[in-house]
């Protein structure tokens, strides 16, 4: 008698535990977290490390947004116009003869845009807005830009040609939005109700209270999928 009861209870518990744990973690950790994407063949092997790398490693610590200047003004970060590369490089005689620079100037003389390949290329129905993230992390929370960009692009300053180092999958985006980026009055919600954009319900308590500001990520699917 009791043996059977015990067994049944055991089974119940077991299966319940399994499925609840399943329900508990709606997004299992993205499979490809921090796994490097494939190395993309670029027309010119651009050395990010030389430009953005730390001084001790021989880098020049150039701000990401010096070249990728569109990021702060537009949804797409974009690639700098050729004229920007030339702007500096025509006055840097030292490397003028380096093969990569030669190639660069060939494009310039031909007035042809360099056909860079997309590395961080989201599916076409996903719309990520660089401007918003820059505004929030760098301008409002003034975090170091390399950290902010690094959230999604990884440690580019150590790479030559950029290479995807984050999953960039929906769950991955979402995990961040749940985790630690609480929407606070300073952190991106200047207008009271705006917290609403990031919670699935309108906070009953006044904005500014912890509960009202629990960031649950954008619950409007149309934020990214249009």
């Amino acid at each position, binding site marked *: 008698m009791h043996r059977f009861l015990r067994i049944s209870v055991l089974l119940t518990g077991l299966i319940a535990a399994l499925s609840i744990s*399943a329900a508990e973690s*709606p*997004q*299992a950790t*993205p499979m490809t977290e921090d796994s490097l994407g494939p190395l993309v063949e670029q027309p010119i092997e651009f050395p990010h490390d030389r430009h953005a790398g730390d001084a001790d490693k021989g880098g020049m610590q150039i701000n990401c947004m010096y070249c990728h200047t569109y990021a702060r003004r537009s949804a797409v970060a974009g690639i700098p116009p050729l004229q920007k590369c030339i702007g500096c490089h025509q006055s840097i005689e030292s490397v003028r003869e380096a093969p990569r620079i030669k190639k660069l100037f060939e494009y310039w003389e031909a007035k042809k845009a360099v056909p860079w390949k997309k590395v961080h290329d989201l599916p076409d129905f996903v719309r990520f807005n660089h401007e918003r993230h820059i505004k929030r992390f760098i301008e409002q929370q003034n975090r170091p830009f390399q950290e902010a960009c690094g959230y999604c692009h990884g440690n580019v300053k150590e790479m030559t040609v950029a290479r995807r180092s984050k999953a960039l999958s*929906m*769950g991955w985006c979402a995990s961040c939005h749940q985790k630690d980026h609480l929407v606070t009055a300073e952190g991106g919600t200047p207008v009271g109700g705006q917290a609403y954009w990031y919670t699935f319900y309108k906070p009953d308590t006044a904005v500014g209270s912890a509960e009202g500001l629990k960031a649950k990520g954008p619950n409007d699917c149309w934020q990214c999928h249009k």
Partner: protein
Amino acid sequence: MKDIREDIAWAKINQDVLKSLENPRKLYWVILFVALAMLGVAVGCEVYQYNVGMGVANMDNPHMWGLYIATFIFWIGMSHSGTLLSAILHLMHADWRKPIYRFAEAMTTFSLMTAGLFVAVHLGRVWQIYYALPYPNERGAWPNFQSPLLWDAMAIFTYLSSSIIFLYVGMIPDLAICRDRIHEGWRKKLYTLLSLGWEGTDRQWRNFRVTYLTVACFLIPLAVSVHSIVASDFGMSQQPGWHITSFPPYFVAGALYSGCAAIITLFIILRYVFKFEEYMTLPILKKIVRLTFAIAMVWTYLNAVEFASVWYSHDQASKDVLIQKASGTYAPFWWAMIFCGSIVPLALAFKRFQTNIPVLFAVSLLLNLGMWLERWMIVAPTFSHGIYPWTWDHDQWPSFVQWGMVFGSFGWFTLLFMVFCKVFPSVSMYEVKEMVYHRSKETKKQEETGKFAAAGKGAH
């Protein structure tokens, strides 16, 4: 005339049934081949539709659903009679079910599988169907549990798995028999595996009885819930002609109805193909026929109730749909449905038809045709005369793709069913034995009591 000969030897039962696994009539192979061909048509259509798009099925706005959904309901309905025969009659200790419930259950299982296919066929992006499954995923997105379609999925999954289990559990003792009797070969291995080492010990029988009873008890409410949920696909919506309170019982009745009709058809086929005359006897057939007749009348009544409730309601839109069904483009089909569903079954009321195989065969087919039409008449007319006038009377005719798919589904079903009957005993041997055993006992008792009575007279 008795349901079954009572002096029939148990060993003979084994032989007769096991024969069906070995050498059926030629007709079996013909059926199998035809079924295969029909399935081929459907596969062709599906490939075409998959590559080009749903448009080739010739649906449009507002005709978003077509024969696929209609046929889906049809097959779901078909499945119900299996449960009726095995579970309900089992609880009622109606032992005449014993020779026929096995194939009825098989029918349940396979018609559910067929229905399941139609869900996939209907989807615009079938390759994304896994979005509808509730599994923890990387995206963290879940299906919408508010959708009746999801209830459907859940219900059908439950129903299918339960019926398979029910079918299997009930088959274990027979599998043991096959294991013991069949000649060496892959089949023997299969049976050995499936029979789980059944020996028919008292302990096994004891738990077997209880389990079988319990599962039967679960199956009945389940079956009812399944088709009322299918009904709620329509009932939950706001469309005129769908938003009707009596839909769930109406659907359930329809389901049992078409199921019984299908059983008659298959009964006749199996009886001939596998030479089961001795077990699938006419008296049993007669019982089913009467059952069918009763359900037909119930369905007719519920049909009338539906019309009446629409008629007396203030919902002008639904009235229009009803009128449009009876007089619009779909009128011929609608009246055909009434004829096949309500008039034809009256034939079953006549004694001389109740055992007349050819007549019954024809009638049962007509009944099923009627039930299929009923499902179509639920789906299509509402679309062509909904709430919104701009889309009214925009009628649409299913393209060959849809017809092909419907046609093929019958092939698919027949294929599965026939293969099953060839591989597994389609008559439950041990239960027939029980039937014979108990019946003979009964009659012995009666005879004895009779003898004593006679003796008593003689004494004085």
